[in-house]
């Protein structure tokens, strides 16, 4: 049975090149399966198909933790896909070092990626030993507070303009039967929310000291103690969320069952899909309205080394398609993220995205925690904060002590 299918597969690879001059089917794996995300991927596929090649979609639902082992096994097992999503930063480092990934420097030089990609740190994350191994596609920032205007109206209070007002409004929301702050049960959401509180309350420098320099003392210091105080408030306000997925939590904000949510700008795609308008139906506060700084993590595509020449050529076409100005605009509008090139026109962007672009232009940016910390340290942080948010008997002081320990051993 297998021999026959192998023969069939062989026949196909032999026949195809004769039929179509330089077209190839490329399998692209990713974990973008929520409504907004899928719509955004469709834009990438459309643009790539227009080059005469064909995008074979290999979506694996269930966020990176389900998809990543599959991607890594297939690459190390010698049967790689043609391109794959990773959060950019340090996730794929070792695959590159093992010589399993393709060097994109030629394409990058030809298309002047160094000049067009802003901020430069994005391309730095793709660069290992002076060679470029990935194509960044978007900038995602974590530092947003999304508020449901309807929920506040129902509770009879004004929509808050910053974190402190939000905390003050919490009792009124609770009285109206609304969960003030939706925090989904997946561990990364609690950890992410804490990072956001840190930038907003302790500021950019402390953030850099703790996560960038892994300064244990700063992590145990009074500035971070304030952040844990705020996290304690957040914990109290999130009681009764009872959902797992981030977009279910976002949905609580959309339907007015929750007052707000601390979530990255990808939440915007969900608001858009639900037909809501920034400003009238929901409000967004970058940096929690306290400290307008955004992080510049994001997604990138990596290209495993392939033996097939046709496909290798098509990989180049895909890489340049991803950074094409038109693709960048179409993709990022749907995804709710910011484009990686500074020279594209985002006239169609809504209020929230414009705020983001503004902050980006001012240079009020920090690196994302995915870029600063290893996946291992991130996971330990997630364990800590998911426990903290679920367990009211854990004091902020204890949590801070454990946090400092994680930072001390972080790499």
């Amino acid at each position: 049975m297998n021999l026959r299918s192998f023969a069939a597969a062989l026949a196909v690879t032999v026949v195809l090149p004769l039929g179509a001059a330089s077209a190839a089917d490329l399998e692209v794996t990713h974990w973008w399966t929520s409504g907004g995300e899928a719509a955004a991927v469709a834009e990438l596929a459309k643009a790539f198909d227009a080059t005469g090649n064909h995008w074979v979609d290999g979506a694996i639902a269930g966020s990176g933790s389900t998809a990543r082992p599959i991607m890594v096994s297939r690459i190390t097992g010698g049967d790689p896909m043609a391109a794959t999503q990773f959060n950019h930063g340090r996730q794929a480092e070792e695959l590159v070092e093992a010589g399993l990934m393709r060097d994109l420097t030629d394409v990058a030089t030809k298309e002047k990626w160094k000049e067009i990609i802003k901020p430069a740190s994005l391309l730095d994350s793709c660069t290992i030993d002076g060679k470029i191994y990935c194509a960044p596609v978007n900038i995602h920032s974590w530092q947003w507070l999304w508020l449901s205007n309807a929920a506040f109206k129902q509770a009879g209070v004004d929509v808050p303009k910053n974190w402190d007002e939000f905390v003050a409004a919490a009792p009124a929301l609770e009285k109206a039967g609304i969960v003030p702050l939706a925090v989904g049960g997946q561990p990364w959401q609690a950890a992410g929310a804490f990072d956001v509180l840190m930038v907003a309350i302790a500021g950019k420098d402390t953030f850099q000291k703790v996560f960038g320099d892994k300064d244990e003392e700063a992590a145990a210091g009074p500035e971070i103690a304030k952040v844990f105080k705020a996290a304690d408030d957040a914990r109290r306000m999130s009681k009764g969320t009872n959902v797992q997925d981030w977009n279910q939590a976002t949905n609580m904000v959309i339907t007015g069952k929750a007052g707000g949510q601390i979530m990255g700008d990808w939440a915007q795609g969900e608001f858009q899909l639900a037909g809501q308008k920034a400003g009238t139906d929901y409000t967004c506060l970058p940096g929690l309205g306290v400290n307008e700084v955004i992080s510049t993590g994001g997604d990138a595509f990596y290209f495993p080394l392939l033996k097939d020449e046709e496909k290798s050529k098509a990989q180049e076409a895909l890489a340049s398609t991803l950074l094409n100005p038109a693709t960048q605009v179409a993709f990022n509008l749907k995804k709710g993220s910011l484009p990686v090139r500074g020279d594209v026109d985002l006239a169609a962007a809504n209020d929230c995205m414009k705020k983001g672009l503004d902050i980006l232009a001012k240079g009020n940016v920090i690196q994302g925690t995915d870029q600063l910390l290893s996946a291992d340290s991130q996971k330990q942080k997630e364990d800590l904060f998911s426990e903290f948010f679920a367990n009211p008997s854990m004091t902020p002081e204890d949590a801070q002590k454990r946090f400092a320990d994680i930072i001390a051993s972080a790499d």
Partner: protein
Amino acid sequence: MPEIVAFNTIAAGIEPEVEKVQARATQVGPRGRKPRRALSGRNIMIYGTLIVVALYYLLPLYVMVMTSLKGMPEIRLGNIFAPPLEITFEPWVKAWSSACTGLNCDGLSRGFWNSVRITVPSTIVSIAIASVNGYALANWRFKGADLFFTILIVGAFIPYQVMIYPIVIVLRELGVYGSLTGLIIVHTIFGMPILTLLFRNYFAGLPEELFKAARVDGAGFWTIYFRIMLPMSMPIFVVAMILQVTGIWNDFLFGVVFTRPEYYPMTVQLNNIVNSVQGVKEYNVNMAATILTGAVPLIVYFVSGRLFVRGIAAGAVKG
């Protein structure tokens, strides 16, 4: 020949054994005490307990079916135990043919035949190998066999996830990584401990005299296996099949890790439908997808559940 000498000494004690075999052969169906009057206290207790238990087992299925027939607005309003006010088959259609994962909007239908292509050969190969193992262990023990078997049983306790890397390496070296053959090998490996144990215990429980008599007649390893052991082993083959069909059909991890997308089983789509949320979770579609994915093992159960009991009787009669 020493075998014959050994046989003769045992043969003296064979008479009562044969009677026992015949006694088994005449029994068909359940035993235990003879039922008394229909409405005795004992019967009320038995049926009462069984009915309560059956309700507990059926409750989730009931909820699944009811939910899959409701529209989303009704689900949001309501009581999960209430029957649908308005029956709709849309969730079923959607789950089968149009639910999306990423860009592929063809629901579960995409993976159905792949699941069949994976499950059928994997089940057959793994059962064939494990039954021969069990037979060798029960009737033809050789030095060291127990050691290998002990390792195998301990292997049943290893979490699958830990073995991903070593197996990727082995399959890569064999040159079957990403192929259907590779996946069949993986299922055979992970099915082996429990199946071998099942077959070994079953064969060891068959009357020894049959085996010995065949040996005296000069029958060898394979002849005895095919002529005597196989026909007597329907029930255990049915149990093994139930275990394997269920395990392999429901497998998600191996299906995605060890193959290419063109072989992805139905569970991959199920996972994608259940886990990719488009705004609100579409519980009705999830439930329909769930039932559809479970349909094949369920049908196997309905059909083979009867064989399970009949198999025991038939096995004894033929013996």
